[in-house]
C-alpha cells in the first residue's frame, strides 16, 4: 500500500437541524438537544411520521446571474463559506480544490416538475428550473460563489458520500495537486428520500434511538458539513491553527445486498482496520468512535459486531456515540458532519452523547456508550459511514499534537482489463477497438446476465455489470462509475406514483435504484467486488472524473485496484431536457439524440503492458495540457467528438499535431463518452497501434486529460 498522508483540519462549517454554524450547533450537540421536529418543507401526509430534523431559517439565494439554487446548494454554501473563513483561506490566492458528496442535490426543487415530465411529454423541455438538478450542480454553484477552485469533483456513495469526499481530498493533497481542499457533503430534505426510506420501513415514527432495544429506524435529517484540509507543514508554515487532522481512511464494500448490511459486520470491520493501518495506528489507541448509528435494527447490531471484530478487547476502552439522534440522518452530509463532530470532540476533550439511548439493546451492549456528554481526553478517534449497497468508509482522526508526518508514496497505475456494454454489444479487451469503427446493426449487450441475480437491476446497473465483468473485475476491486444525471426517469416515475397514489404505495425495491451510486453498488453485489464503490459526477466529463478518482486512489494506496469509467442509461428526460440544456452551458454542439452504455478499464498497481502515465484536471484545456507530459512518438488523441472546442484546446500545445480519432460514431452519444474514449485509447496502445494516447475531455468550465502509454 502507498500512503495518503495527513489532512490538517484548519476550517469547519456546519449546517444542521441544531444550528447553522459550529458555534451554534456544537454546544447543542454536546448537550444532546434534539433537532427533530415537525416536517414543514413538504407535505408529509401518508408517511409513517411527520417528524424530520430540518434546518431552520435557511434562505435559498436567487443570484442575479439567473442560476437556480437548491436547498442542498444553500446549505453547502453556508457551511463551505464558514470553513473557508475559519481557515483564513482565499481561493484566489492559493490552489484550493473542492470535493462535494451528495445524493439528491436539487431533488426537492425539481420533484413536481419531474413527476409532470413523467406524465406529460410536452413538459419535457429545457428549463432553468432543472439547473439545480444534476448531482454536480452544488460544486458548480460553489465554484461561482466561493471560488475559483483549481479542480472540483462530486462523489456519491449514498450515505457514506461525505466521508468519501474526505478521501478524495486527502489524495489531492498527497499528490500535490492542491495547497488546500474544501471537502464535505450536502443533502436537503426531499420527498424522494423521505418516501423511499418510509417504503423500506426504515423510519422510526418517533425520534430515533440509536443502539436502544426499542429502536425502529432512522429520523431523516438534512444538512451540510464542509472542512478545509491542508498538509500539516504547510498549515503551520502559514500560521494556521488546527487541533485535529484526518490521518487514515479505510473503504470497503460488502457485496451483500442493496439495502441491508451483512449482519456479521465483516467488511465494515475491515474498513476500520484499513483506516487504522493506513495511519500507522493500533486498535488500543482508539478513544472515541462517532458511529454510523442510524438506529435501524440491522445497522446498530451489525456496527457493534464490526467494532468488536475490529478493535478486539480494546472495544471496552473506546467511547461510542451516534449524533444522528440530534441531527437526524443527513445522508450525504452525515459522513462530513460527523467527521467534524469527531474533530471537535478531539479538540475539546468532550464527547457528544447518543440521545434517546435508555435501554441498551443486548446486541449493542459490547460498546462503551456515551449517554450524557462526557469529558475524555482522546488522542485518536474514528468516524463510521455506511451507505446503500454496503459501501463502508471509516475515517481515522487524531489530535494535532499526536500527528506525526506520515509517509506519502505514489505508485504507478496500470491497465489490466477493458470492458464495455453498448449498442456494439459486450466487448472485452481488444474487442474494444470496435469503438473506433463504424456503428453496425445494434447488438444486445445484456444477453449474458443471470436474470435471477440481476432481477432488481435497472438498465444502468445491467450495463455497468456487463462492462465490469468484461473488464475482468475481481473480488478486491473497487468500482468508480461516472454518471451525469443518475436516473432522472426512474426518479420521475417513482415521484409520479407518490403524488398520484400516496407514500404507502411507493415501490420500496425501486428506491435504492434512484441513488446515483446504485449501478456500481448492484454490480459490486453481482460480481462480489469488495473495494471502494461509488459514482462520480461532472456532467459531460463524468467518465473522465471517475477514471481520475480511481487513478488517484490507486496511486495513493487507498485501494490496489478498481474498475473505472462511465455508465449512462436510457433517459427521455436527459435526452429532451437535461442534455440539451447542459450541453449548451458546456459549449458542446451536438444533437440531443442520446444512446446509452457503460465502459470501464480495470486499473491496478500491479505492473502490466499499459500504464496510465498521467492524469490532469483543471478548469480549461490549456491548463490541463500544460500539466501533462508531451506525446511520445506514434501517439494518438482519442476524443468524444473532434469538434472546435477540442481543436481550440490543443492549439499551441505539445499535442497539437497529434492525429485525433473519435468514439461517438460507433458508441453513440451520451455524457459517458469519456469512459468509452479511455477504453478505446487503452485498446489502441494494447494492440500496438500507437505507443501512447491522450484522452481529452474539455466541456466548458471543466477539463480532464489522461495519458496512457505502453509501460516501459
Amino acid at each position, binding site marked *: 500500500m502507498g500512503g495518503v498522508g495527513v489532512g490538517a483540519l484548519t476550517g469547519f462549517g456546519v449546517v444542521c437541524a441544531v444550528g447553522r454554524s459550529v458555534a451554534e450547533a456544537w454546544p447543542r450537540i454536546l448537550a444532546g438537544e434534539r433537532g427533530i421536529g415537525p416536517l414543514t418543507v413538504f407535505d408529509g401526509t401518508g408517511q409513517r411520521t411527520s417528524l424530520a430534523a430540518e434546518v431552520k431559517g435557511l434562505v435559498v439565494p436567487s443570484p442575479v446571474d439567473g442560476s437556480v439554487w437548491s436547498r442542498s446548494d444553500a446549505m453547502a454554501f453556508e457551511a463551505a463559506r464558514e470553513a473557508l473563513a475559519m481557515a483564513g483561506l482565499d481561493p484566489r490566492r492559493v490552489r484550493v480544490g473542492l470535493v462535494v458528496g451528495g445524493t439528491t442535490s436539487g431533488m426537492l426543487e425539481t420533484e413536481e416538475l419531474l413527476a409532470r415530465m413523467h406524465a406529460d411529454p410536452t413538459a419535457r423541455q429545457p428549463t432553468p428550473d432543472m439547473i439545480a438538478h444534476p448531482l454536480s450542480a452544488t460544486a458548480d454553484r460553489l465554484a461561482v460563489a466561493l471560488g475559483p477552485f483549481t479542480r472540483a469533483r462530486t462523489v456519491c456513495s449514498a450515505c457514506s458520500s461525505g466521508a468519501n469526499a474526505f478521501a478524495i481530498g486527502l489524495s489531492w493533497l498527497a499528490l500535490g495537486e492542491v495547497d488546500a481542499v474544501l471537502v464535505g457533503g450536502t443533502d436537503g430534505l426531499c420527498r424522494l428520500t423521505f418516501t423511499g426510506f418510509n*417504503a*423500506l*420501513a426504515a423510519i422510526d415514527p418517533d425520534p430515533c434511538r440509536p443502539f436502544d432495544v426499542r429502536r425502529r429506524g432512522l429520523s431523516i435529517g438534512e444538512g451540510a458539513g464542509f472542512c478545509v484540509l491542508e498538509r500539516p507543514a504547510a498549515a503551520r508554515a502559514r500560521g494556521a491553527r488546527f487541533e485535529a487532522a484526518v490521518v487514515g481512511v479505510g473503504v470497503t464494500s460488502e457485496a451483500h*445486498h*442493496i*439495502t*441491508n448490511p451483512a449482519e456479521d459486520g465483516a467488511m465494515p470491520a475491515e474498513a476500520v482496520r484499513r483506516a487504522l493501518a493506513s495511519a500507522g495506528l493500533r486498535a488500543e489507541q482508539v478513544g472515541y468512535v462517532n458511529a454510523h448509528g442510524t438506529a435501524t435494527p440491522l445497522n446498530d447490531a451489525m456496527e457493534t459486531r464490526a467494532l468488536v471484530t475490529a478493535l478486539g478487547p480494546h472495544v471496552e476502552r473506546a467511547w461510542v456515540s451516534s449524533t444522528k439522534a440530534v441531527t437526524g440522518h443527513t445522508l450525504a452530509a452525515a459522513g462530513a458532519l460527523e467527521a467534524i463532530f469527531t474533530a471537535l470532540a478531539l479538540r475539546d476533550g468532550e464527547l457528544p452523547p447518543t440521545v434517546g439511548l435508555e435501554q441498551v439493546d443486548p446486541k449493542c451492549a459490547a460498546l462503551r456508550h456515551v449517554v450524557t456528554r462526557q469529558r475524555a481526553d482522546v488522542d485518536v478517534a474514528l468516524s463510521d459511514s455506511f451507505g446503500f449497497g454496503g459501501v463502508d468508509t471509516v475515517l481515522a482522526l487524531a489530535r494535532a499534537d499526536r500527528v506525526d508526518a506520515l509517509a506519502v508514496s505514489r505508485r504507478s497505475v496500470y491497465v489490466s482489463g477493458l470492458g464495455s456494454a453498448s449498442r456494439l454489444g459486450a466487448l472485452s479487451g481488444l474487442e474494444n477497438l470496435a469503438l473506433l469503427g463504424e456503428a453496425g446493426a445494434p447488438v444486445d449487450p445484456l444477453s449474458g446476465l443471470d*436474470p*435471477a441475480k440481476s*432481477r*432488481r437491476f435497472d438498465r444502468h446497473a445491467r450495463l455497468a455489470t456487463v462492462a465490469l465483468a468484461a473488464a475482468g473485475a475481481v473480488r478486491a476491486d473497487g468500482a468508480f462509475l461516472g454518471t451525469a444525471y443518475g436516473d432522472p426517469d426512474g426518479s420521475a416515475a417513482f415521484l409520479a406514483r407518490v403524488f398520484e*397514489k400516496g407514500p*404507502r*404505495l*411507493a*415501490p*420500496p*425495491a425501486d428506491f435504492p435504484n434512484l441513488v446515483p451510486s446504485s449501478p456500481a453498488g448492484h454490480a459490486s453485489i453481482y460480481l462480489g467486488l469488495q473495494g471502494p464503490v461509488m459514482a462520480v459526477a461532472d456532467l459531460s466529463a463524468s467518465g473522465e472524473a471517475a477514471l481520475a478518482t480511481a487513478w488517484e486512489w490507486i496511486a495513493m494506496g487507498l485501494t490496489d485496484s478498481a474498475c473505472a469509467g462511465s455508465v449512462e442509461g436510457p433517459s427521455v428526460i436527459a435526452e429532451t431536457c437535461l442534455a440539451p440544456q447542459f450541453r449548451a452551458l458546456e459549449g458542446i454542439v451536438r444533437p440531443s439524440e442520446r444512446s446509452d452504455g457503460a465502459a470501464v478499464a480495470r486499473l491496478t498497481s500491479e505492473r502490466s503492458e499499459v500504464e496510465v502515465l498521467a492524469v490532469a484536471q483543471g478548469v480549461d484545456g490549456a491548463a490541463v495540457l500544460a500539466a501533462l507530459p508531451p506525446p511520445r512518438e506514434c501517439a494518438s488523441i482519442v476524443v468524444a467528438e473532434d469538434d472546435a472546442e477540442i481543436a481550440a484546446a490543443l492549439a499551441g500545445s505539445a499535442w497539437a499535431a497529434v492525429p485525433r480519432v473519435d468514439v461517438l460514431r460507433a458508441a453513440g452519444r451520451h455524457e459517458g463518452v469519456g469512459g468509452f474514449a479511455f477504453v478505446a485509447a487503452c485498446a489502441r496502445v494494447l494492440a500496438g497501434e500507437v505507443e501512447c494516447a491522450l484522452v481529452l475531455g474539455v466541456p466548458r468550465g471543466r477539463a480532464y486529460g489522461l495519458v496512457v502509454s505502453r509501460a516501459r
Partner: protein
Amino acid sequence: MSDSLVSELKSLIVRELNLEGRDPASIVDSAPLFGEGLGLDSLDALQLAMAVEEQYGVRIPEGDGGRVAFASVAALATWVREHGGASKG
C-alpha cells in the same frame, strides 16, 4: 386450495419481484416464500406487501402478522380473503 386468487397472487409475485423466466404455475402453494423455497428476502416482502395493498386493498402488517401472511402463497390467499380483500385489477 388451488383457486383463482392463488393463481393471481402467483402472477403478482412473479411480476412485482421481477422473477423473469419463472412460470407462476410452478410456485408450490404451500412452499415458503422467504428464506428457502422461493428464496425471497425482506426487500421483496416490502415490495409484495405494497403490491398486495394496491391490488386488494389489504394491509399486511410488519412483524409477526406479516410472517403469517407471507408463510406461503396459500397463506397469503387466506390472509387476503379473511381481511376482505377484493381485486381492484
